[in-house]
Each structure stands twice: as C-alpha cells, then as structure tokens.
C-alpha cells in the first residue's frame, strides 16, 4: 500500500471520526426533553419576607433551551410569576436602585465583549466595550456606579497568562471613572506597588464611594478597602477573595482558597468589626462572587454539570452564620440578585 493511500485513508478516518461525533451529539441535541420549567423554591425561613412586600429574583437563565443566557425576573411569592427579557443576553448581571449592568459576549469572527447599562424598564442606556472575558459586575446600592472585572489574556497558548482588569463606571453617563490598576495602594500606611497586581470582585458600601475588592499579589489575595473619589485603596487582610458586603454593611461574605496548588473555594463570612471569620455550611467548592439574599442568607451559583452545549448552573441559598444547610433556590440560574419594591423593581 502506498503512503499516499494510507494518508488518504488516515484523513478519511479522522474526518469520519469528527463527523461521527458531530452527528451523534447533534442527534442528542435535537431530541432532548422539553426545557425544564423554571422552578423557584421559596425560602421558608426568610424573616424579611412579608406578604405585602414585593420581592423578585433577577438572574441569568442557564437551563437548556431557547432562553439560555437571557435575563429572568422571577417573583419570590405565591404567584410564581416569571418574566423573560430575551432582549438582554448576559454572561453576568447585577442590579440596584433602578439600574442594572449586563456583561455580554458577542460571538463573531472576533468575539467581542461589552457591558450594557439598563434601567428598571430593561431599556438600554449605555454600551461599553470590554477588553476581555467578563467575570464579575456589581452595581452600588444607590444605583450610581458599577464595577466590572474582566479576564485579559495573552493571545497565544504559549503565553496563557491571565490577568484581570477592574473598572468603575458611572451609570448615569456610562463613562469610566477609573481603573483600579491606576489607584494608589497603601500597605500599612505606606504606598505599595508591585508589577503583578490583579484586582477583582468589587463590592460597594451604601455610600457608593467606599468599596471593598480583592487585590492579588505574589499569589496571595488581599481584601482591600478603597475610595473612588480619592482614587486609592488600602490592604486590610489576607485570604479574602470576591468580597460581597451584606446589605447592613457589617459583614463580608467571600470565597476562601483552601488546598495547595489546585484550590477549592470555601464560602466564609467575615465580621468587619471583630475580624471573626465563619465558615458557611456549604462544603462544595464555590468559585463565585456571592450575593446576599437579605441580611441573613447568601446566594451563589454552582455548576450542575457541564453539558455538551452549555454550562448549566443552579443557585443555592445558605445561612450567613454558618448554621443550617444549603438549599436549592432556583434551577438553571446564574448571577442572581434580589430586587425589592419599591426601589429596585420595574413597574
């Protein structure tokens, strides 16, 4: 047999293998069961949930089907009303006081990333181009500002160094107020600067000038507190990643890296006044910036399993004091945020 024949045969085997795989997986894709209904499990032990108070959950839908990636607003009451907003397909979303930020990825010849600023009626107001793959976003409680973190990576495989970029934007104008990388950082009162700084996971305080975030340098994540007006931040403590400030501004929920080179993340809550850390009941690894459901419970997404076409995640709920056990809040959901009447909710 000549080499040329062998090569043609080899190519045929390779192509047949690829085509076969596509055929088999497409077959499975065409014949799945109908997309599961959105089921919201009501949190029974929610102290703040009063019958008169309207409270809804905004999230990115990750259940398989046509609506994958769209925003969903689900009423957390007995009506079980669910509204879809297919006009906004987001990778990550956050909302507060009538303003929301939706991070997008538009797949094309060159995939581009952006941020859409939208209002309570889900109308778009501003668009920003982002320099990398969207990771986290947070709107300040007063709805004036937002923070966005993206992953910027080298183009080639050989230099797959990922770094983060975190920017603060003004939601009324859509302008960038600053890049945390340009802020003056203080450590023990003295200016501190290293080439390997990476910032991510901003969470705003109630006054929206002060914020908390993560700064990693020399492989160690630090909790930092900063001021947007003064364009500076200072190191507070080690080992705190992706902080999320409680609505009453007294505690910070965060993911803590456990294990060596290959980390798992355990959810913890830090009491700001005392510095006391409490491990939460969730024992699975959670790589997320959590969101407070209210002052007593936090929400976070966990992968259900990565299917062929899409990543399906579920949103879980667990008490913020380390007691109890995690409960499933919504299936097929990611990036949840609670909207309360009358401030946040669209009419």
């Amino acid at each position, binding site marked *: 047999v000549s080499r040329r024949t062998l090569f043609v045969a080899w190519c045929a085997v390779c192509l047949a293998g690829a085509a076969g795989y596509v055929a088999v997986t497409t077959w499975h894709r065409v014949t799945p069961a109908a997309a599961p209904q959105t089921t919201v499990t009501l949190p029974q032990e929610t102290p703040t949930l009063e019958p008169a108070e309207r409270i809804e959950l905004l999230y990115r839908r990750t259940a398989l089907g046509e609506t994958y990636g769209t925003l969903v607003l689900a009423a957390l009451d007995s009506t079980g009303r669910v509204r879809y907003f297919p006009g906004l397909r987001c990778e990550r979303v956050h909302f507060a006081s009538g303003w929301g930020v939706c991070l997008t990825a538009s797949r094309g010849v060159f995939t581009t990333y952006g941020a859409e600023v939208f209002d309570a009626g889900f109308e778009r107001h501003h668009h920003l181009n982002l*320099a990398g793959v969207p990771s986290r976003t947070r709107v300040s409680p007063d709805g004036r500002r937002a923070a966005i973190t993206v992953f910027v990576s080298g183009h080639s495989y050989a230099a797959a*160094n990922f770094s983060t970029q975190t920017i603060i934007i003004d939601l009324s104008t859509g302008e960038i107020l600053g890049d945390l990388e340009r802020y003056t950082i203080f450590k023990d009162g003295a200016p501190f*600067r290293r080439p390997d700084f990476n910032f991510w996971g901003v969470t705003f305080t109630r006054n929206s000038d002060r914020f908390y975030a993560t700064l990693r340098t020399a492989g160690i994540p630090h909790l930092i507190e900063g001021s947007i007006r003064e364009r500076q931040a200072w190191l507070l403590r080690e080992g705190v990643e992706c902080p999320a400030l409680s609505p009453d501004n007294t505690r910070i929920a965060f993911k803590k890296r456990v294990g060596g080179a290959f980390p798992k993340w355990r959810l913890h809550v830090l009491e700001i006044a005392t510095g006391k850390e409490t491990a939460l009941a969730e024992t699975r690894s959670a790589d997320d910036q959590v969101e407070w459901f209210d002052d007593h419970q936090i929400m976070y997404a966990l992968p259900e399993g990565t299917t062929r076409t899409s990543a399906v995640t579920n949103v879980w709920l667990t008490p913020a004091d380390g007691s109890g056990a995690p409960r499933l809040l919504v299936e097929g959901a990611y990036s949840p945020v609670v909207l309360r009447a009358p401030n946040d909710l669209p009419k």
Partner: protein
Amino acid sequence: MYQADWIERIKAKRPITGRQAHLTVSRTVWYLGFTSLFTDISSEMVASTLPMYLVLHLGLSPLQFGFVDGLYQGMTALLRLVAGLIADRWRRYKEVAAAGYGLSAICKMGLLWAGSVWPMLVTVIAVDRLGKGLRSAPRDALLSLSMAQEHLGVAFGVHRTLDAGGAMLGPLGACALLLLAPGAYDVLFMVSFCVALIGLGVLVLFVENCQAVTVSTDRLMVSLGLAIGLLREPRFRGIALAGGLLSLATISDNFIYLALQQRMQFSGSKFPLLSFFTALFYVVLAVPLGHLADRVGRSTVFLGGYGLLLLLYSAASVVGSNFAAFVGCTALLGAYYAATDGVLMAMASAALPTDLRTSGLAVLTTVTSLMRLLSSVLLGWLWTTGGGFAALHWFLAGLMGAIVMASFWLHHRAEDV
C-alpha cells in the same frame, strides 16, 4: 558598512544561482510545513477560545495559569535538551518530534475529559506545552538536514509561512464553528483533535529521518556535556549570545499591543485584529526574507529584522491614531518575525555539526526562551516603576545596544553564511 556588503554579495551570487534553484525546497520541508500547518490550526482553534471556555463556559477564574507558567518554563527547558540528545543519539528526529505532536493532539481530547476539574485542566495544558517544547528542536533539525546549507533560509521561510498560516486559520475556524454551533466546545475540541491527527499523519507517513552522510556508526557520541560544549565553538557561541541578548531586549507581543493601544487609544477588543495582521505579514514575508537571507547573508537579514523592531519601538511612542499607523505597526512586527525567527534557526543550523544539530538547536531555543522570560520580568518591573513609555524607551535603548553587540558577535567572523 553593511550596505556595501549586500551589494557585493548580490552581485556575486546572482549569476551563479538562478531564482528557480532558490525557491526549490525539499519534500521534507513541505511535509514538515504541512504538519505544522495542521497542528497550528488545531492548537490555535483551542487557544483562541480557551479564555472564553474557562471563564464563560466553566465559570472558572483562570488566574492561576500565570502561577503554573514559571514552573512549566523550567520543565520545558530541561525536556527540550533531553529530547534533543535522544533525537541526536539515535538519529530519531521524526520519532521524537512525533511524540511531541502526538502529546499535543491527545491534549485536545484531554480538555474535554478534564471538564472543570482544576488539577486536570492545568495538567492537560502543561502537557500540551510540553509537547510543543519537545517537538520544535528535532523538527527544525530534520528540516535543516534535508536541505543544502545555502538554501536553509528559504527552507525555514517556507516552513514558518505554513506554520503561521495555520495560526491564522485556527481562530477563524474556531469562530466559524462556534457560530454554527454556539457553545459546542466539545465539537470544537473534537475537530481540533482530528485536525491535529491529520498533521501527525503527514509527519508519520511522509517524513523520513535523514541519514546523515558524515557518520556511519549507529549510536553516536552524544551527551549533555557535548551539547553544552557546543557553546565553546566560536561561531555557534556568537549566534547564541546574539540570539540571547536580542531576546532579552525584545518586548513580548502583548506588551507591544498594550503600548500601541495606549498610544492609539483603540478598544481592547481590537487585540485579535493586531495579532491577525501581524501573522498575515509574517506569512507573506517569511519566504522572501528567507530567500534574501540566503543571498545577502543571514546575519544581515537577522539584524535587519531587529532594526525593524527598533523602528516599531520608536513608532510606538510617536504614532497617531489612524488605520494606516495601525497596519504599519503590525507590518513592522510581522516583518521582524519573518526576518528573525526562521533565519536564526537557519543560521544556527549552518553553524552546528550534523551529529549535534538537534541538541544545539535545543540549547539555542532554551537560551532565547529563558531570556524572553527574563525580559518580561524586567519589562513588568520597568512598566510599573516608570510607566509604559518609559519602559518602551529603556527597551529601545537596550535593543540598540544589543544590535551593536550582536552585529559584533555575528560579523567578526569571516565565514558568515
């Protein structure tokens, strides 16, 4: 001073060798080129979509890749030398290269198996890059052994054209695939795996190990000591010193792109366009410049390439924000690659003995890659202490000095090929 040289050389060579002779390269070169073409399509398909896959699909925070990178660099350097020695000792260039290409091919499937398990993902990516380190020296050695010395420049030019062409096609293929089947990363990895297998098939079925004419024993005298000892030979040492120093004074592409972005104020989303244009110019210019290198002297073209880089660094701090400047800068960068990457290998191959070709090339690439690593550390430090443009100016001055030193190391010998 060199201009007079060029003219003399062109005058001297034109009547002797016709154009046709220059552009003919051996079958091995074509086969190795197509192996690289398929392999690069395959790996760039995955590389260009990997950040998206990790962050958006798996929901991971991939910061720890940089962490693993340093560790990996050391590992690859060592493996590259060992692979070089094995290939030389048993003259099994093809087999060692095939092992490298095979490892990388398997890793495309490995990504699918790894799922979102961190240790497995990191391992798969590390093994893939290990494969890359394993294959390049034996492949370049085989390529150089298949050609007469005076045509090495054009031979490497042909290979690099196909290689960079694959790197351009890969991301386009990946995007087309993801547009047809959104989120179907499994199909993407599967197709990438099959394309890599086709590349491996070209290598295994068509490429043959060159039987070196100068040696007759089955087992050659090769050792690490001998390989390192190559650096005592003045010609190769000159090339290694020049290559190393110039690599130290070279800013990595990503930083160049970043500096251009700061200067021209374009959106970060145009980065892929920058690397696309750079690759395009590289593809177009690799053969003509390799050809020129064979005619006027490889060291001249090699140093000329760094001259273009010097121009780029100067331009990056003064250019305005328009499309012509954008394309012009990528043209300079692409031409720099075309004039240096393959030409350095051609130059080194010509200076290395047949028996130790792979080991010597492995020593050289180890030197240049370690210097590149050092350069990025240095640049990061300069960038943070003095800002982007101060860093650029330091490197501009450094590169000027390095070119002067390198031209001394490369040109003070008479027998420059």
